[in-house]
């Protein structure tokens, strides 16, 4: 069977990201799964094996870590030319998309971004325009290079015993033009990552100030979820930008999305419309968020949320 390359996304803190397990799950329908790992592979191998990697290509070193994205694209391009895979899957994250973009140019090949489904023939399903339309697309030149959106499928284990191959990558001078001089981890506690969380609790302008965001965090922690924010909340300085949900922020697709003091503007919906279940608390009965909420409470979030928290504690 032909190989399918899955470019692994992992983080220092959390190891293999959930989206990687999703990609491994999808890849099994497309061919024999090979994972491509950059950086420290040791810890990751067991997880990749558990989810069906038959082979692990591993590349590390200063030439790869020390520069922005380009060396990784070179490594994947070399691998594609050598093993002629049926497809390449990458995560729909900033880095995943950037590698994909360079790869597409290097190979003069099509690419599809933000897929929520990939069929056995490589046809990708994309949700576009603020979640209002579904598109099926195909790469018509070259092999399918597809980036997969987190929370698209349920990862399923399929244990394998992967062979590990060390890659030596011929990194060019052009790949070394942008140096990474510092990587700073900003504190985030033990909450799950926003785009991968199965529960997201978001606060909007209605939360009122940065201090009050504790209320949002408290509910998120009780539910084991991540915290998100509307753009108005971010612009007002209530919460950092990397937690913004929407058109110009993150796209989330959790099992449960809780919107607190968020009106539900079309650009906010763009980032959360495909959530499985949506719950909202807003004091304005006409707020558009209620048009898509499975359960809505018209009321003051400063009364409703503490009572709900109390109730969740009781049930634990």
């Amino acid at each position, binding site marked *: 069977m032909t190989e399918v390359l899955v470019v692994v996304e992992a983080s220092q803190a959390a190891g293999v990201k959930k989206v990687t397990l999703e990609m491994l799950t999808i890849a099994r329908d497309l061919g024999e799964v090979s994972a491509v790992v950059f950086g420290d592979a040791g810890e990751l191998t067991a997880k990749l094996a558990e989810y069906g990697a038959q082979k692990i290509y591993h590349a590390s070193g200063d030439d790869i870590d020390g520069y922005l994205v380009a060396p990784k694209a070179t490594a994947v391009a070399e691998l594609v030319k050598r093993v002629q895979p049926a497809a390449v899957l990458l995560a729909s994250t900033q880095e995943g998309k950037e590698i994909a973009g360079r790869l597409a140019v290097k190979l003069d090949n099509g690419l599809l971004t933000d897929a929520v489904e990939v069929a056995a023939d490589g046809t990708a399903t994309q949700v576009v325009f603020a979640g209002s*339309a579904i598109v*099926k697309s195909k790469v018509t030149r070259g092999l399918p290079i597809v980036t997969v959106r987190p929370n698209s499928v349920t990862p399923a284990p399929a244990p394998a015993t992967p062979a590990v191959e060390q890659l030596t990558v011929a990194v060019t001078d052009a790949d070394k033009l942008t140096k990474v*001089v510092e990587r700073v981890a900003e504190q985030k506690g033990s909450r799950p990552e926003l785009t991968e969380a199965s529960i997201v609790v978001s606060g909007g302008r209605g939360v009122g100030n940065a201090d009050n965001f504790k209320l949002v965090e408290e509910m998120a922690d009780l539910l084991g979820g991540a915290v998100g924010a509307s753009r108005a909340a971010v612009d007002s300085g209530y919460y950092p930008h990397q937690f913004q949900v929407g058109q110009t922020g993150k796209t989330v697709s959790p099992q449960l999305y809780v919107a607190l003091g968020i009106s539900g503007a079309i650009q906010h919906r763009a980032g959360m419309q495909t959530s499985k*279940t949506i719950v909202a608390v807003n004091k304005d009965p006409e707020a558009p968020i209620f048009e898509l909420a499975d*359960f809505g409470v018209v009321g003051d979030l400063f009364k409703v949320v503490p009572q709900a*928290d109390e109730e969740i504690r009781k049930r634990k």
Partner: protein
Amino acid sequence: MNIVVLVKQVPDSGAERTLSASDNTVERGSANNVINEMDEYAIEEALKIKEAHGGEVTVLTMGPERAAESIRKALSMGPDKAVHVQDDALHGSCAVATSKVLAAALGTLNADLIICGAESTDGRVQVMPHMLAERLGIAALTGARKLTVDGSQLTAERQTDEGYEVVTAATPAVVSVWDTINEPRYPSFKGIMAAKKKPVQSLSLADLGVPADEVGHAGATSAVVEFAKRPPRSAGTKVTDEGNGGAQLVEFLATEKFV
């Protein structure tokens, strides 16, 4: 410093958007078309750098005839001139082809610094800066929330999921920006009047030496094979808090097995 800002015209993200039934491309004819919001931040950053270090700012757009409106709007913020790549053959271009055309146009402009938005609000493909850097063989600093220029040395702070990275490169380079980088200025009346007289050069594919069959529908590397509206979500239960709204909420979460 010679700066080129990439500006794309997109349908307003605050209104309903759709694909045209005939060929599955974005319906732009009936849409209210605006400057891609992130590109306004790119223009602002370019103007700030020019104000601090001198130089010239050129707006580069690839798009149909009506993209000229967005070019004028961009110029009214303060850039010096614009280049508009337009050609009927471009209709239906994928990201790979778009990057080929923009790279060819950039080849005629001799830029030290190319600034663009981190992503467009219509395609949201988020690949253009790296594609251009790859084609031009220059550096890419992407997703900047802060940019410092020191002679020919560029330093950007780039937002990541874990925190941020600091990246550096020498010009020439492509930089893409998020909306956290600055606050775009509003065009002044004087700016709007001045924009009417600023030069806009129109370039065709032939001018750029890009074969027509390598772009548009003919040269697309991917194709939309099916398009369907998602059924709108329907509203569920709505209760008014009369002292037990929080409890009712958790009752719902419990039936859905979230608590």
